[in-house]
């Protein structure tokens, strides 16, 4: 048999080749095993010890760039649970943070509290603890996390706060709380520039003077300072906030609450998405925006009693221009708020509270200017600056200085000069996202010639975005609120 095989020249050659190859490989096998012995005896500092086999490493068979998203997510979750979150922290709780938070979140979403969620999808053990405390307290306290974020877990999300702008028992927030909330927002957002823009607008319109503006700023700064210093304490106490509270304010409260409650009822009637417009009792009147405001305005502005009163008090002949301006401002603001609510950037309650604040401010300041009188109607939110006692003014400045120092310690100072907070552009992240989405849609429209109906493409896009946004939230790439905002923007297109 052997001889006959060799006789076939072709076969023999092939045989020889393969045999030679096998011999070579055999030799290599031996060689590498010898190598292994040699290397194991020598003090190689390398890591790891070479196995020396011809096997290709396992990794090549694990090329998994295109693993389905689910798998990747599942693995990421598994890794997460295994490595970073040791089970010593009650598996029940980590389950809570992943699954239950999600469910809770969804449930709450339907109650239109979504924007205010600071869900911790992937919360750390610390977050879980704080979560419990937070639910117990009647207020929304997240400043501790904010404040200490330099230390650890920049990623830890805010706590579950189903309350949003309501107390636990459902009563609407008082004006004080609104102030607190606004100051909190400023603090959290760290965007003083927005406040400054408003002030500069008011200045431009001549509604307040420079010094009043400065004092205003101090007041807000003081509130912020108080927030920082009081974050450890509970919130329920003293009605005596740094902002002066006078008897006249208490008289105003019922006045404010009534329209606010009325508006809020209107706001909270429906779901918080693109159908918000249906729930706004104001929207019907405001849908049609005309240049001529004289006829329409009072009916829409009935919810702003101060402003209304102010308008009435303005002598139409002498101050016609100013009256026009004021009316224009209010109308535009109302429109804008409506749109923001519609797009879901803010909740209805926030919109209402903002408008009420503004109402107060404008009314107050204009009154001051026009009448040049000391007013008793101190706004709860922005006390009339010139009327404040000097001690308070001084203390505000002190507080502001203290706050600056604290910020100084914390702030990012990659720039040599101090942050010029006053001229910060208010362009926030949301606007950047909006701009990006706009560019995307534009480009898609240009390049997606297939679908005649824009709706069809957009609905596919919407689904894709929804899915991606959710996936990103799970992976910690997006905040829940960001994802929801993005989803809302797309669904409203």
């Amino acid at each position, binding site marked *: 048999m052997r001889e006959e095989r060799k006789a076939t020249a072709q076969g023999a050659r092939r045989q020889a080749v393969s045999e030679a190859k096998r011999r070579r490989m055999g030799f290599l096998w031996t060689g590498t095993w010898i190598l292994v012995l*040699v290397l194991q005896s020598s003090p190689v*500092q390398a890591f790891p010890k070479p196995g*020396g086999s011809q096997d290709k490493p396992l990794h*090549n068979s694990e090329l998994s760039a295109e693993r389905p998203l689910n798998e990747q997510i599942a693995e990421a979750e598994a890794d997460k649970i295994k490595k970073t979150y040791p089970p010593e922290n009650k598996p029940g709780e980590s389950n809570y943070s992943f699954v239950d938070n999600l469910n809770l979140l969804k449930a709450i979403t339907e109650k239109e509290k979504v924007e205010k969620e600071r869900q911790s999808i992937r919360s750390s053990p610390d977050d879980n603890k704080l979560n419990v405390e937070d639910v117990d307290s009647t207020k929304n306290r997240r400043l501790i996390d904010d404040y200490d974020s330099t230390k650890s877990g920049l990623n830890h999300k805010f706590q579950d706060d189903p309350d949003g702008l309501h107390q636990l028992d459902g009563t609407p927030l008082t004006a004080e709380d609104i102030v607190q909330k606004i100051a909190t927002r400023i603090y959290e957002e*760290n965007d003083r520039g927005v406040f400054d823009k408003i002030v500069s607008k008011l200045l431009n319109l001549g509604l307040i003077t420079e010094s009043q503006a400065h004092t205003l700023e101090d007041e807000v700064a003081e509130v912020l300072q108080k927030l920082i210093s009081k974050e450890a304490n509970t919130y329920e106490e003293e009605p005596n906030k740094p902002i002066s509270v006078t008897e006249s304010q208490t008289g105003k409260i019922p006045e404010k609450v009534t329209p606010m409650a009325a508006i809020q009822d209107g706001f909270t009637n429906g779901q918080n998405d693109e159908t918000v417009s249906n729930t706004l009792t104001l929207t019907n009147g405001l849908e049609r925006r005309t240049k001529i405001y004289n006829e329409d305005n009072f009916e829409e502005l009935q919810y702003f009693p101060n402003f209304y009163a102010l308008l009435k008090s303005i002598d139409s002949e002498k101050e016609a221009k100013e009256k026009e301006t004021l009316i224009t401002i209010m109308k535009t603001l109302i429109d804008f708020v409506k749109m923001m609510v519609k797009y879901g950037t803010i909740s209805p309650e926030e919109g209402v509270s903002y408008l009420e604040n503004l109402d107060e401010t404008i009314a107050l300041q204009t009154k001051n200017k026009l009448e040049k009188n000391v007013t008793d109607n101190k706004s709860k939110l922005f006390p009339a600056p010139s009327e404040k006692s000097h001690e308070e003014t001084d203390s505000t400045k002190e507080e502001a200085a203290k706050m600056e120092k604290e*910020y100084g310690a914390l702030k*990012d*100072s990659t720039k040599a000069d101090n942050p010029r907070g006053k001229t910060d552009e208010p362009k926030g992240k949301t606007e950047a996202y909006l701009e990006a989405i706009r560019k995307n849609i534009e480009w898609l429209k240009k390049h997606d010639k297939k679908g005649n109906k824009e709706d069809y493409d957009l609905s596919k896009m919407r689904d894709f975005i929804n899915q991606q946004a959710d996936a990103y939230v799970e992976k910690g790439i997006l905040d829940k609120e960001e994802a929801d905002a993005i989803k809302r923007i797309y669904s409203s297109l």
Partner: protein
Amino acid sequence: MAARGGRALLALCGALAACGWLLGAQAQEPGAPAAGMRRRRRLQQEDGISFEYHRYPELREALVSVWLQCTAISRIYTVGRSFEGRELLVIELSDNPGVHEPGEPEFKYIGNMHGNEAVGRELLIFLAQYLCNEYQKGNDTIVKLIHNTRIHIMPSLNPDGFEKAASQPGELKDWFVGRSNAQGIDLNRNFPDLDRIVYVNEKEGGPNNHLLKNLKKIVDQNTKLAPETKAVIHWIMDIPFVLSANLHGGDLVANYPYDETRSGSAHEYSSCPDDAIFQSLARAYSAFNPPMSDPNRPPCRKNDDDSSFIDGTTNGAAWYSVPGGMQDFNYLSSNCFEITVELSCEKFPPEETLKSYWEDNKNSLISYLEQIHRGVKGFVRDLQGNPIANATISVEGIDHDVTSAKDGDYWRLLVPGNYKLTASAPGYLAITKKVAVPYSPAVGVDFELESFSERKEVEKEELMEWWKMMSETLNF
């Protein structure tokens, strides 16, 4: 409807101060407040690229913005978390994000591995935005790149270190603060030292590629590896990267393997088997960076020894020996060729200089990206057309082999010349082919390998036929 609403919205934003406040009232990042008052944002803006330092929240936002603008060609993912829990974010740009298309090479940029070397981090953020913008503008080069490559950009491998560095008060940043990760580990000395192994193998025989065995187990069980290091190792093993660059700061040069000296001395040119292509790759970066390639540029610091720099490039070990670096780890544990680019004499320069760093580097970054489409590429399949993964592709005269990926696809970067390529796999007969390689584009060479068993079958058949013939002839 959408456009109208959006435009009206934006118009109002511009017009009213109130919008700013309300926007500010939107729920925000958990980590941001610690940074104190927001600094001047949009310092200098150009087409969505803001030339300012991005802290972790801003980094994330910037990447999300790019994704939102270019959802069709981008995807954000994370390879893991830093020690302090920050995601190691990557943005991927390709015409089919999330998917490895067979034959499409994979590229990565990694920046800010030393947290206080900040320019790379920022450049990569700018680059992501730039690629998205240019793609939408129809820039041919960029469109082709994105359609034919899968580009992964990780702006920061050490976000913890960066936060530390960036939080320093004042203008001057320390040379060391923030360099290592939160555990104090220098990530670029933390990788398994495969150089030593390959040096031994050179002398005594042994594999010349993929030297890290029993990978997953060893990596996960090794307590000395930082989480960032582990994440990158897994990343390298999961995706068949072909070309990569690792961005640093503190000098101005493109550095290529090997980083560790053979003899153990402090400086010694230690070439790797692919020295020729590495020099070409490094030059492809430095040539487009005017200060880097300026032969008359004085060294960054008066007493610096830049005698090893040629045309803005240097062999790593010739400059100074670095053991445990990521660059060599790539080369010796995977198919990926990586160089290290030092982008700036100052590790953490003032924010105002970022724009000029971008101008100096943007052409280099694109040019280097294009280098991936060089040499030889193709598929290794069996006779039935099924892909053969983990096949070895060796080049005669170069003692470094590459392997085929899951779909049987391989890429072999080579400088122009004539080569003999051999594809082999366990259980298959090797095949050698001659190839003439130009500067670019890559030459396509496919292999169809015959397995031993097929060979045996064929020979058996021949045998049977011969036997039949014999028996007929001899009347068995």
